[in-house]
């Protein structure tokens, strides 16, 4: 009897441990762009294990994070995460997410994929992005709300110019102002970042001169205050 009892208790404690770390979760996500006049490029949403990070503040951006932050291209990070599947949703909004707009998606997370990361570039910026890194997905059924900040990848000078050319990593300038509300002729708002690690974005400067000045961004349209996005997770 004693032996049997020990075996049952061991089995029970293993089952309890397993249920907190390895049970698949069915979750719905909704993300809203809270900015006044900035778009999000196609989002990447992924559930992954607790040791994976898409970005970390205070650390240098990976080359694939840089590609996302400077050009809105998530292909490198998507590849790092093993491609699109039930845990990783690429581009749930099928394109840009406009100011005020929301998008929703669902994940069926596999065993051990207990943490969630989301990233998208903010347009128009040089290398600003919205995101959350390795957020622990709540275990209990319920609805959970989070507010996300804007980050700076630390890889490109925030010169706030709109050269109108196609985007390439390491090339100065902002790829596009999606609402065609940018200016021309700016001399450049900033040289290289002082903080070359991923950090909290200081916000865009902009100016009120559409054909000159320091910035091609409009200070009355393109600025934001944190938070820049609302994330709602529903654990089913």
């Amino acid at each position, binding site marked *: *009897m004693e032996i049997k*009892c020990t075996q*049952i*208790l061991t*089995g*029970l404690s293993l*089952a309890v441990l397993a*249920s907190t770390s390895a049970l698949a979760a069915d979750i719905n996500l909704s993300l809203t762009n809270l900015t006044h006049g900035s778009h999000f490029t196609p989002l990447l949403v992924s559930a992954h294990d607790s040791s994976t990070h898409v970005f970390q*503040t*205070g650390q240098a951006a990976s080359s694939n994070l840089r590609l996302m932050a400077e050009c809105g291209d998530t292909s490198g990070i998507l590849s790092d995460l093993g491609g699109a599947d039930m845990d990783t949703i690429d581009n749930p909004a099928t394109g840009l997410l406009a100011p005020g707009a929301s998008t929703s998606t669902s994940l069926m997370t596999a065993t051990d994929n207990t943490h969630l990361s989301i990233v998208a570039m903010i347009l128009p910026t040089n290398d600003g992005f919205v995101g959350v890194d390795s957020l622990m997905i709540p275990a209990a059924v319920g609805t959970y709300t989070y507010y996300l*900040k*804007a980050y*700076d990848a*630390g890889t490109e000078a*925030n010169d706030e110019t709109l050269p109108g050319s196609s985007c390439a990593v390491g090339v100065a300038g902002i790829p596009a102002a999606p609402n065609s509300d940018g200016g021309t002729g700016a001399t450049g*708002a*900033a040289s290289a*970042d*002082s*903080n*070359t*690690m991923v*950090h*909290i*974005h*200081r*916000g865009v*400067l902009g100016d009120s001169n559409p054909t000159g000045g*320091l910035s091609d961004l409009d*200070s009355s349209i393109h600025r*934001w*205050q*944190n938070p820049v996005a609302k994330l709602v997770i529903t654990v089913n």
Partner: protein
Amino acid sequence: MMNLLKPMSIVCITAFFLSACFHNQDDDAMQEHTMMYQISVSNLSNNQALTPPAVVLHNENYSAWRLGMTASTALEKLAEGGDTTDFISDANANSAVAASQVLSNSPIGPGSSAQATIEISHVHELKLSVATMLANSNDAFTGVNSLDISSLAMNESLMIDVMVFDAGSELNSESAGTIPGPVDGGTGFDASRDDIVNFISIHPGVVSMDDGLASSVLDESHRWNGSVAQIKVTRLQ
């Protein structure tokens, strides 16, 4: 789960709860022992050095500052010049304070972090307060006031992005000679209270010469949005 539970005898369940009970008693005994915390401050600004942060572990009867209230002279010295001497000695003179420490010997630059390990005897309702100046400002400081860390279990961490406050003790002129940080090398602490208010608020942010304040020695690189630092607390013992 239900299938596993079915064959379990009453004896087994009793044994399980008894062992849980003994475990709790062990926890109570442990609480009289030393506790150890690692405190880390990470600078997430673009171009604001953070002066060496003052860290205080205390109970609910100590408060380093209150929003909307006048800053103490000790906090004024910290927020205007990065000088933690009085802030630390005021804390140490308070019976609600278990330990205090200056986290680093030199300022923490953008993208860098500093950490220290602090040991204390058990404190009921343990709180953490941290204060550090944004060196390229008149009297901006960041940190946290009375963050409850009493529920942290062993090896558990808590991370928080903290707000920037205005001490309300010096006018935000941003002008030459008034900012002690590397951009200016100006005066730090000045006993006069010449701000438009004399209370602590959320900092409105710096304006800078690039945004129309021609007399500012700051440029757009010194601005921030909401938060400039992340504090991480890990209970090690």
